[in-house]
């Protein structure tokens, strides 16, 4: 059980991806990691949109929400996590999130909506966990603000109907099972994508959430 994983660029290719120029702010889409792209309509997060992430407690909704920040943060976009007073920082690093681009507001003291709205001014992706069911007017106001500032709101909701307005995309973890071999190795999770943004039938993707080394991967 001697684990050593120096987080240095493995190759020149990895180094080149790490130091490539940051994406222009005018671009309409924010990247997501490859395993998640088949869940989203454009294969990426659309600026001004909302993604609701939900699932039974312990099934991986938090990991899924954090994984949505991965590619955006490594591409140089600023991200924020509002209302997560217990972020698993090491898990974020293992998912591949660039922690230098993430700010946390762990305890917004009842002002999570105001804090989120304030962050839209300068941050591209805001991951928010509302303390309870969100009021209809507050949700509408946040949506308008996100659209106005061309930012993305990712809501971590305990129940599907905690977010009162019909969302563009709802990602729901519908199944989860751990694989253990002397230790917890990986979790196979099935994620369903529904919402206004998705035409036709709901999409299902089976993921390793997280996989063996803590990263996210497609399970076949």
């Amino acid at each position, binding site marked *: *059980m*001697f*684990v*050593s*994983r120096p*987080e*240095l660029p493995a190759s020149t290719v990895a180094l080149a991806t790490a130091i490539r120029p*940051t994406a222009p*702010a005018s671009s309409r889409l924010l990247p997501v990691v490859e395993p998640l792209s088949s869940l989203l309509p454009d294969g990426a997060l659309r600026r001004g949109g909302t993604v609701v992430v939900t699932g*039974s*407690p*312990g*099934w*991986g909704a*938090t*990991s899924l929400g*954090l994984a949505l920040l991965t590619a955006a943060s490594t591409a*140089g*976009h*600023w991200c924020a996590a509002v209302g997560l*007073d*217990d*972020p*698993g*920082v*090491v*898990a*974020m*690093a*293992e998912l591949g999130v660039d*922690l*230098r681009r993430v*700010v*946390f*507001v*762990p*305890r917004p*003291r009842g002002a999570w909506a*105001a*804090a989120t709205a*304030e*962050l*839209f*001014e*300068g*941050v*591209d992706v805001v991951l928010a966990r509302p303390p309870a069911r969100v009021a209809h007017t507050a949700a509408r106001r946040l949506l308008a603000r996100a659209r106005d500032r061309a930012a993305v709101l990712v809501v971590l909701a305990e129940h599907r109907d905690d977010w009162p307005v019909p969302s563009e995309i709802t990602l729901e973890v519908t199944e*989860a*099972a*751990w694989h*253990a071999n002397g*230790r*917890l190795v*990986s*979790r196979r999770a099935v994620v369903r994508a529904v919402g206004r943004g998705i035409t036709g039938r709901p999409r299902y993707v089976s993921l390793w959430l*997280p*996989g*063996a*080394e*803590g990263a996210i991967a497609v399970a076949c």
Partner: protein
Amino acid sequence: MVRLMVLWCPTLSREGSRGEEPRRFAEVLDAAVELAPFARPVRLGVLAIPSKGPSRFFGGEAVFAEHLQGVVGPLLGGAGRVCVGAAEGLFAAVLAARAAVLVAPGATGSFLAPWSIATLRDPDLAAACQRLGLHTLGRFAGLEEARVLERFGLDAVRRHRVARGVDGELPGLRDYAALRRLDAVRHRDEPSEVQRGFFGERGGADVRAAAAVQRLEQRLGHGAVTVARLGGGRTPDDRAALVPWGSADAAIEGRDHVAPWPGRLPSPSPASIPSRPLAVALLDEHGHRVTVGSTGLLSSVPDRLEFEAGRPRVVAAHCGPWPMAERWWGVSRRRAHLQVLCDDGLAVLLRAERSRWWLSGIYD
């Protein structure tokens, strides 16, 4: 109380019409920091240095004081005068600098005694004491503390302790507004460079993000916005720290998190780490508490996991325990970690410490 050496530049103590004093005092401060890294400003024209280390290095307090005067003097030009004094506690040291004496160790009380009561910076207290015939700090210090509390109140008790030489921090001695201005002059008020962009440049996005965070801090208070830093350690909660945005601690990143840590808990790590300790109960099928013995083995097979609130969960499987005995040479810490998988799919990381089980993380 810490023995302090205070350097006082009378010409720089008050800001003149041209306003160049803060800048020139910043130069003095930088020169002093070169000699003694723990030199800190107290107010405009006054800086304090814990004298123990530099005195030993330079070979005596008097030699160090001379050295300090020799370095700072030329910075002030012809008209400038530099006074150096040393004593126990900040208040006494500032007075010693005014008198330009190095008070012998242990003689601070007798040094303070002849000074006027007005040095305590409380006009009302001074006037009352003068009328009572207590003209000096020594006479005031001779009063009983209980009588001072009775007659003058709690604030006077603090000043009484200063007059007796028990406490060195007189309220109002440090001028925080001037210190902030000094920081601005010395460019110490900018966020640390860890938050800068690639190659130390700040792109437009970084500037906008910093502005948004600053507005949010004004609304929620300092420390409400944090950034995460990875450090060395074996467990997820040891390895990660949330530090306030822009704090100097933000620079710990990259120090030793790439170093090997034998016995580090395997990845994946829990996506949710409780911010405060949460006790849980781990029971076997007979309802007895499961413990970790001195050999590092579980006393029995866990069957139920009970949280403080909510229904008990049935344990489907467990991995571990992994005992850890750290820092046996100092502040010893013994604990064991156990991964528990419940039948509803919830996986948690538990920690046995001080003969209880604690929730260390949730694999959410």
